[in-house]
């Protein structure tokens, strides 16, 4: 098939768009960084892309709440185009700040784009530490449905966020996410075992690090996969070179899913 197009959406405060574009290119995408004002001028710019990526950063400074203002802007200026995009069976990836945007816009968990109901069931809030933290963690892929991961894989990636604690309104919402196989990534031990001690870096319920929508084609995660696409990005490569770059794998799976 032809090289799939990835649109990396950027705006004021986006700051992981370049390395995300680079990672996408490594994975075989034809990636393009586009400012949201260009998309608002011409919403059908989305139609040419098969993958929409909302990269990491501090969109609009994370003022009010992380990802909130960009989510608000998308809902009020791009709702139609976004609905069209997700219904066209394409892929959406929200990384770190992008995950926060997907959650606060309602695209996750239920693929909705209605300001009135957005983020009513789940949100990403302040880490228990109350602080931004940058460190490497382990993740376990727990979903068969999610197009970006392979169930059972144990993945090494860094986290770098202050508002990454995933919580749901109540137990019913959590059960629904579980029963619909939407819990794509959980923090875990190096061996893939359950979290103990401080392995869960932010206090997320059920150690959740990433979720997808019921179709598995809209995916958001806190740890940025573009930060592990070459061996020397790994914190202990001077001890032993990693065989695989887990972040690159994730982009490759997205490529295969198209």
């Amino acid at each position, binding site marked *: 098939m032809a090289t799939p197009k990835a649109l990396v959406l950027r705006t004021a405060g986006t*700051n992981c768009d370049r390395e995300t574009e680079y990672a996408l290119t490594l994975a075989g995408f034809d990636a393009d960084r586009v400012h949201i004002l260009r998309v608002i001028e011409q919403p059908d710019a989305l139609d040419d892309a098969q993958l929409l990526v909302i990269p990491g950063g501090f969109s609009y*400074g994370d003022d009010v709440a992380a990802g909130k203002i960009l989510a608000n802007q998308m809902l009020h200026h791009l709702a139609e185009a976004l609905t069209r995009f997700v219904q066209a069976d394409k892929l959406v990836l929200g990384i770190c700040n992008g995950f926060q945007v997907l959650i606060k816009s309602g695209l996750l968990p239920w693929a909705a784009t209605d300001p009135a109901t957005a983020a009513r069931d789940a949100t990403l809030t302040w880490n228990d530490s109350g602080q*931004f933290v940058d460190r490497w963690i382990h993740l376990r892929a727990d979903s068969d449905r999610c197009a970006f991961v392979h169930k059972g894989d144990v993945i090494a990636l860094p986290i770098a966020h202050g508002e990454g604690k995933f919580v749901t309104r109540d137990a019913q919402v959590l059960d629904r996410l579980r029963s619909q196989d939407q819990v794509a990534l959980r923090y875990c031990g190096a061996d893939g075992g359950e979290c103990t001690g401080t392995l869960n870096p932010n206090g997320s319920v059920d150690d959740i690090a990433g979720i997808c929508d019921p179709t598995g084609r809209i995916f958001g995660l806190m740890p940025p996969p573009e930060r592990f696409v070459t061996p020397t990005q790994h914190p202990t490569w001077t001890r032993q070179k990693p065989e695989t770059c887990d972040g690159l794998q994730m982009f490759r799976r997205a490529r295969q899913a198209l």
Partner: protein
Amino acid sequence: MIHRIEIRSAGNFGDPHAQGVLAQARELGVSGLQAVAFARLFFLQADLSDEQVQRIARELLADPVTETFTVGTAPATGALIEVHLKAGVMDPVAASTEKAIADMGLPIQAVTTGRRYELRGTVSDAQRELIARRLLANAVIEDVHFEAFAPPEQAAGAYTLHVTTVPIRTLDPAGLERLSQQGDLFLNLTEMQAIQDYFRQLDRDPTDIELETLAQTWSEHCVHKTFRSDVALYDECGTLVQEIPNLIKSTVFAATKELDVPWCISVFEDNAGVVDFDDRWAVCFKVETHNHPSAIEPYGGASTGIGGVIRDPMGTGLGARPVANTDVFCFGPVDMPLSDVPAGVLHPKRVMRGVVSGVRDYGNRMGIPTVNGAVYFDEKYLGNPLVFCGTLGLMPRDMGRKQRARVGDAIVAVGGRTGRDGIHGATFSSGELTHAHETQFSHAVQIGNPITEKKMLDVLLAARDAGLYSAITDCGAGGFSSAVGEMGEHVGAEVHLDRVPLKYAGLSYAEIWISEAQERMVLAVPQEKVDTLLAHFAAEDVEAVVIGTFGTPDAKLRLFYGETPVGELDMAFLHDGLPRPTKKAVYSFTPRPTPTPAERENYTDSLLKILAAPNVASKEWIIRQYDHEVQGGSALKPLVGVTEDGPGDAAVVRPVLDSPKGVVLAVGMNPTLGELDPYQSALHAVDEALRNVVAVGGRLDRTAILDNFCWGNCNKPDRMGSFVQAAKACYDAALAYRTPFISGKDSLNNEFKTDTGETIAIPPTLLISAMSVIDDVAGCVSSDAKQAGNLVFVVGATGPQLGGSHYLRVEGLASGNDVPPVDPADNRRRMAALEQAIRLGLVRACHDLSEGGLAVAAAEMAFAGGLGLELSLEALPITRDGIEGLANVHTAAMLFGESAGRWLVEVAPENRDAFAKALAGIPSGQIGTVTDTDRLIIRGLNRKPVIDATLTDLKAAWQRTFQW
């Protein structure tokens, strides 16, 4: 009207911020405090229906899952504290909220924000006051209210032009000094007289803006007149020892000139020093200080410090993209009792918390990894904390040279708007601080808005690559006054100040000209490209406005407000009129040997104490708050080892993602030695920075260095004396190591006058930052022990001196000024040999020996690798200076001595001979092996362990100090 909305935690998922306040209040000794409730306050000035206000609160401001909201004021459930920003202080959240409300299609005039705290439990009014002032609010930028407060409607204040003339021609010397003082000009009598003569010749008096322009341009901060002055050096008997013309030209510049390396593109002429990276790219590096602002408002001071240095690479050549930040801090003792902190000084712990959050919030939001740094503590930094921020930039190789504005180019101001913030920053930072500065100079402090800078950066790079401007510089100290004055130095400039976009009305033409409001840059744009350029900025919602033209018939600087001329100066006088009097320096060195400490059976205790000493202890609490991996180029992180929490010697980044080439960043600094022997201290600083570079696999022959001098008041001959010693050392070191200086900055007058009239000067503090370009990051090594059974070598010779060592400090022993002498030429040979061994792949781990010497380095290498070390001092190479054999070296000197030019190196047994060959002729000794145990054991000459500790205990001691 104004609608008040309160947002508070719903309580179902906790409230970390309220918890944080509770914990810190308890630290302050408010034991009766049971709980803290926190609310964010939003005030919407707009004609909105109740339903619309409800909708904004529900859909925009409150998180539906974790928060609840109140429209109006909820009854207080405890002692109330509200914190509101003073009028005119930058409020990024308010700006973003206005944008978001507009996105919702609702009307909005203005938004202001505040914070509300309710203290539950038994809290006296005095305690509430204490919590408000010491923890929650800074009087410099915020007001505290103990009842619900509603900010007044923002009415646009009008400004009517009134040109102020300052009578100067008739003033006597006393009058001139008074004028300088009352106008916060910080100019001395000679300088005031030069200005007086100039206007006497013109036969008129200056306007306020002309005087301000001269004061800004001639400020210590902007021209470094001390470092550029001629120096007469005397010894303590008053005998003239040496006359040095233009100190900086004779030392730092001279070294670079003599070395004349081919890979330097631009040195000491632009906002940052520029060197080759590869055939497509160049890298530039600049390190700045922002000390005075950080002393009175740590968060704002530090964030605008980093924001300012980030604009230096952006304003170098045709503009570079920032790719890495470094930060080095000096604070007073964080464990100092509150009661001992002098009036007008913030507690060091509060300063440290504020500075770290300031750097974190600006650097992280800009998306620039903060990869390397250091923190030092000393009582003398109490009134003058030091905040060094560095930024590495990447630019196309052919855009590295400094550009000047061309005649006819439009002057375009881009980025943030201009307000009253930061007025007199340059002159303020050129004077001494007093206990009254907290209030006097609050207007010199600014709050940054990183997103404004990031937006501006995104467009600048696009405009640069489209070739839309011919020159660029940043608005830093002195604001437009410095930026336009410098760009138009040779062609002149005509500026229309009424065209500058303002944050709020009411600024005078002079305030607009000298404001140091953040996130602004100035471009020189060819007329035919103006429209395209303005369109680029408009397309990403960044303000860009033409405020004048470069080039006047007589190359003068002409300032207008509307059609009214408000100022006119000759560029020649502005830039060359500053008198350069000879500065007096007094220095002499009388050796004071350290009293020999008693020998001891075992030194494990001392090792644990040094590991826990604030200067040595783990800085993980700081490092993890910084994003050190954004941009994807991270190759060697600040923390290394099997559990990623050991100390690295230097950071390595890969700024071009599809290239294996990297940049090594390292620092060296030793204020303790600075007080004992400024010359040796400077050599130590250079050696340490280069030692760190080499330790991770850097290339000495592609290493450039930067100097940052922070000194006391150099109008005092003794301070100037030590300054001269350090400058001479910089020259000697740069030549010996063959590493050119490419950029630098000095911050003098770091002295504090307390309310009791006592003056505290900082220790002579020289920061050396090193940048090395390497071919392949895959060849780098880290400091953590890798493999049991590997051999451990010490490279470099250990001297008998203990002067200035951490050992003496932690044991409370007297120190002389016999600091270990540095032999740069010799150390350079060691570095070259070790560099070769690393390039040949013979080194598994390498850690430099600095604070705490061999024992500390060994402990760090061991616990970082999770492996034991078994070492013996018998094979330790020693220096040749007057000692026959190890037996005459104090055990403490062998273990903790801080001689320069030394490393601890791990080598696989099969590489022993190759390693020995690579180090032929270099003092080195195989002192032991890596073991499969959890112990560090160091045996003395009698084979008995002088150090014996478990890795767990060593690591715990190292990590405990800053577990905040």
